[in-house]
């Protein structure tokens, strides 16, 4: 082996080996093996739910609402979710952003036709309500067209969101029963208000 090969052989081999290893690692995404980065909350995200009825609707509204609130607050959806999941008092900006976000979610779902008519939710709503049996039967007997003419889903939801004490609700997220009770009461109030306004307009 001549002197040049003695001097250069091993360094050249080392350079080739290092370039090969680092190149293969990078070529297979080595530089970007990192945790998922949160998506831009201001970019519209397609939201779906495996659940049907009120549960599915609620999930979609919450997912869109959190995105909208995060966009307003200029944080990621995940950051806001983690912040809201921690115990403690919520500030006005968070509560206002979430309320506006939920209302925007209602508008968005109405605009893209994914908001179900009130008649599709009535049966499920009646099951969990504490109305007397006679009234429940009477309402169930009403044709869908009458229900949909009397109650607009977006109107009821918007009123319910306005009535919800979001600050209190966010501070007691751990109690599922309290959560359902608060939402149920707000929706019931909203339905009554909506019907009252409808009658007032008719008269």
């Amino acid at each position: 082996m001549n002197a040049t090969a003695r001097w250069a052989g091993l360094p050249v081999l080392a350079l080739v080996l290092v370039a090969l290893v680092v190149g293969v690692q990078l070529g297979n995404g080595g530089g970007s093996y990192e945790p998922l980065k949160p998506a831009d909350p201001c970019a519209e995200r397609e939201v779906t739910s495996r659940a049907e009825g009120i549960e599915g609707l609620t999930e979609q509204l919450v997912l869109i609402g959190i995105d909208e609130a995060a966009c307003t607050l200029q944080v990621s959806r995940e950051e806001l979710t983690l912040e809201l999941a921690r115990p403690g008092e919520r500030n006005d900006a968070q509560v206002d952003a979430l309320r506006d976000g939920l209302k925007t979610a209602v508008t968005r779902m109405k605009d893209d036709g994914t908001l179900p008519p009130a008649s599709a939710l009535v049966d499920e709503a009646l099951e969990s309500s504490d109305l007397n049996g006679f009234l429940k039967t009477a309402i169930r007997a009403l044709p869908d067209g009458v229900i949909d003419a009397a109650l607009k889903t977006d109107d009821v939801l918007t009123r319910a969101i306005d009535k919800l004490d979001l600050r209190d609700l966010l501070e007691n997220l751990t109690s599922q029963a309290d959560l359902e009770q608060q939402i149920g009461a707000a929706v019931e109030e909203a339905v009554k208000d909506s019907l009252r306004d409808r009658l007032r307009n008719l008269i």
Partner: protein
Amino acid sequence: MRLVTAPLLAVTVGLVLADSAIVTLALPEILHHLDASVGQVAWVLIAYNLVLGLGAVPAALAFRRADPRIFTAVGIAMFAGASAWCAFADSIEVLIVARCVQAVGGALALVGCLEQLVAERGERRGVGWWVTAGVIGTAVGPVAGGLLTQAISWQAIFVVQVPFAALAVPAALAVRAVPQQGPDRHRPAIRANLTLALLSAALTAALFLLVLLLVEGWGRSPATAALTVSVVPVAAIAARPLARLFRPPPEVEIAVGCFLVAGGLVGLAIPPSSNLLWSVAPQALVGLGLGLTVDQLTSRAMDLRLPRSEHAAWTIGARHVGVVLGLAVLTPVFTADLQDAQEPAQEAITSLVLDSPLMPQDKVSVAEALGGALVDQQGQVPELAPAFDRIDVAAGEQPALDQLERDLDDQLERAATRAFRDSFLIGAGLALAALLTLVPLGRRRSS
């Protein structure tokens, strides 16, 4: 007895140097068993290397005034006794003190064994045995420690050393003649020792951080981690035939070794996934680099310098102070990076849970179960399996839940890998700094 004297002394040298990193894979188990903090448990590693690094040269100075056989036998016996003490330590403080005593015994044994090996095998072969035993011990240490921890317990790491060291005590006493120590004529080889120290700091990144990433970050068992890092000693052994193939000048061999260690560490910093195969090629580079450099540098620092034991002690000091330097530089970086990785990991997990194809109620159950697993992690990677075991869903939902668990584990592995990246790159920087120490040496020779 003569037939086994040199092998027993070489095994002792290997054990003393293996102990530098042998407990790396056992640290999580020690942490839990002795109810210690992460900071305390790091001292099990640091204390040994620090005492060995600082104690080697004084041990060599003391060797000149002592009976070599008694000196060596006492050192080995102290090392064996302290190893047994480590195995029976019932608190982290006792373990750290026992490790310090073990290092003092190790320093005496290393110095003594060198002279005994030279007495048994002659100057060239004796030094060769001593250097090779040290390289093998350094490379094999983490593997042996991981396998013993997994197969038996962390205490087994120390127990198995006792009989080997105990057998070496009569072997040391049986050595008939020890060559006369010459007067102190040569100054320590500062440059070679500096390169050795920086390279040892870089190798700490490879051996220490990699096993931590495998066990703590990627959730692999100590045995799996041990088998994975066995690539390093295998490649280190392969380095010699490679060097013989090209027969480069020693400076070139050392420079190439430093470059390979740096390249391997860059490779370890950027794995494309947590598949263990991605660590094989970078580890092979590190192993080749280790095999090309450590014995060359040690031989260079000792080459015809007298007294031999003192110059050997300088190399031990340089290597182990280098290890401590590596731990001192890298530990705060990767612990801070692990702490910083929590937020992106939690956000990624939140994102996946929100978008998972589960029923809303099941998502809430997952969030509640994970909440406990993710809080108060204190810079450690959380284990999600127990949280998922507690979640009760309908049979039809189980596949989606299993997929979510796999996806979340993947996110944690990604976060841990990202958290170790900077430390591996700093390790690569240390290897390049070791390479830079060679540059002026080349100039001086050429002028």
